[in-house]
């Protein structure tokens, strides 16, 4: 095994993706099937929330991926700006629509969950609002990619936008916190007490926790599979354009 930068070579990247993709896709399918069926049909109803608690198996993983997709785009943008690897820029481009769909899933499932629990589809709660703002950032990022003709300029400008957007996304997160207090509970999955099992009020019960973890793994694999597939498609598209340009010249 050489260094990880070998995969910056598009040919090597495409070949590796072709080899790995079926397994990643199968893992995503398997984890999601097991996790969702287990979660939906083989866990008890919550004593207060009833069956609505089961939407957690879509809501929490989608929200997690939505945030981490942006972080992944940030890392890919930095790699593009620093080391100029085209695959990295294309990976950032490929991840953006996936992230956007994940924020929409999180918002939609949240609304469906919020209606019976809080009695409202939407509240201007800090967490909900910052997610909506994140959706807007995704939209702007994708729109900028679509608007620019020259691929290198587009990659550069979207990378700069991603960096600035990250700073402002965090700023907005805290500004929104200041602006309104919310209904949404705090983080209850990725907290140390929640995992080590200190008996706090807001902890996710073990019965729900195991299938939730399987679903999260499934969403991670799904994200990975989609991004790899879309990156490979972008590489092919880029190559096709080069061939077309060459034929026009000839």
């Amino acid at each position, binding site marked *: 095994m050489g260094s990880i930068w070998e995969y910056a070579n598009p040919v090597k990247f495409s070949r590796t993706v072709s080899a790995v993709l079926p397994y990643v896709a199968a893992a995503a399918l398997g984890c999601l099937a097991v996790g969702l069926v287990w979660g939906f049909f083989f866990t008890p109803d919550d004593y207060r929330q009833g069956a609505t608690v089961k939407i957690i198996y879509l809501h929490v993983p989608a929200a997690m991926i939505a945030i981490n997709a942006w972080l992944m785009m940030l890392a890919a943008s930095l790699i593009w700006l620093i080391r100029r690897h085209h695959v990295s820029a294309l990976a950032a481009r490929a991840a953006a629509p996936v992230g956007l769909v994940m924020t929409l899933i999180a918002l939609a499932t949240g609304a469906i969950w919020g209606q019976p629990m809080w009695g409202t589809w939407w509240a201007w709660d800090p967490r909900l609002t910052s997610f909506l703002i994140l959706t807007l950032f995704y939209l702007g990022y994708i*729109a*900028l990619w679509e608007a*620019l003709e020259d691929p290198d300029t587009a990659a550069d400008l979207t990378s700069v936008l991603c960096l600035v957007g990250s700073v402002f996304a965090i700023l907005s997160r805290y500004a929104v916190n200041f*602006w309104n207090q919310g209904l949404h509970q705090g983080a209850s999955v990725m907290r140390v007490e929640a995992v080590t099992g200190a008996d706090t009020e807001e902890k996710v019960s073990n019965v729900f926790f195991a299938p939730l973890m399987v679903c999260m793994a499934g969403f991670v694999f799904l994200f990975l599979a989609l991004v790899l597939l879309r990156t490979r498609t972008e590489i092919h598209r880029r190559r096709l354009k080069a061939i077309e340009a060459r034929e026009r010249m000839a």
Partner: protein
Amino acid sequence: MIALLLRDLKLAVRAGGGFGLALAFFLIVVVLVPFAVGPNTSRLAPIAAGVLWIGALLACLLSLDRMLALDHEDGTLDLLATAPIPLEGVVLVKACAHWLTTGLPLTLVAAPLGVLLNLPQPGYGWLVLSLACGTPALSMIGAFGAALTVGLKRGGLLLSLLVLPLYVPTLIFGAEVARRGAEGLETQVPLLLSCAITLGVLAAMPFAAAAALRINLR
């Protein structure tokens, strides 16, 4: 830099469009609001500060695409890029000129327009102060957006999509100052945070905008 600032100011005032347009737009937005929500003064009073902030923000947005696009078209920007002052300085001056021709007049007319919306008595000072502290950040963030979209033929709509999410923190703190001021609550914390955002943006954003501009001029 001062010569550039004066040139931009003269262009903005004399060469038609930009200067008065933002103010007229602000006036129209404020006039339209009572038509939409009803003339009831008790309903207008609580939303007055927020409406004035939104109006100022949109008016500011209106003139952003002229900030760099005109100079890009006639080649001035290329000359400025090769000039002895760094591009960061150019962007900062451009944002300054934009603020002097939009942000500052908007701040000044906000108080008279507050009368139309029945803004509560203690709110006027805070409204003007919050706009004075917040609008420089709007101009600077707008300069970044303009730098991103300068090479595009029809960048106007895209510019608003890019810039409006970046306006969120400024809007939240600025409008919070004006709202709390109008209701007679303490305003120190949001005012300080609003100033902090403006200063941070003025310090860091010229670099991002200049980077985007360099990519576009390449």
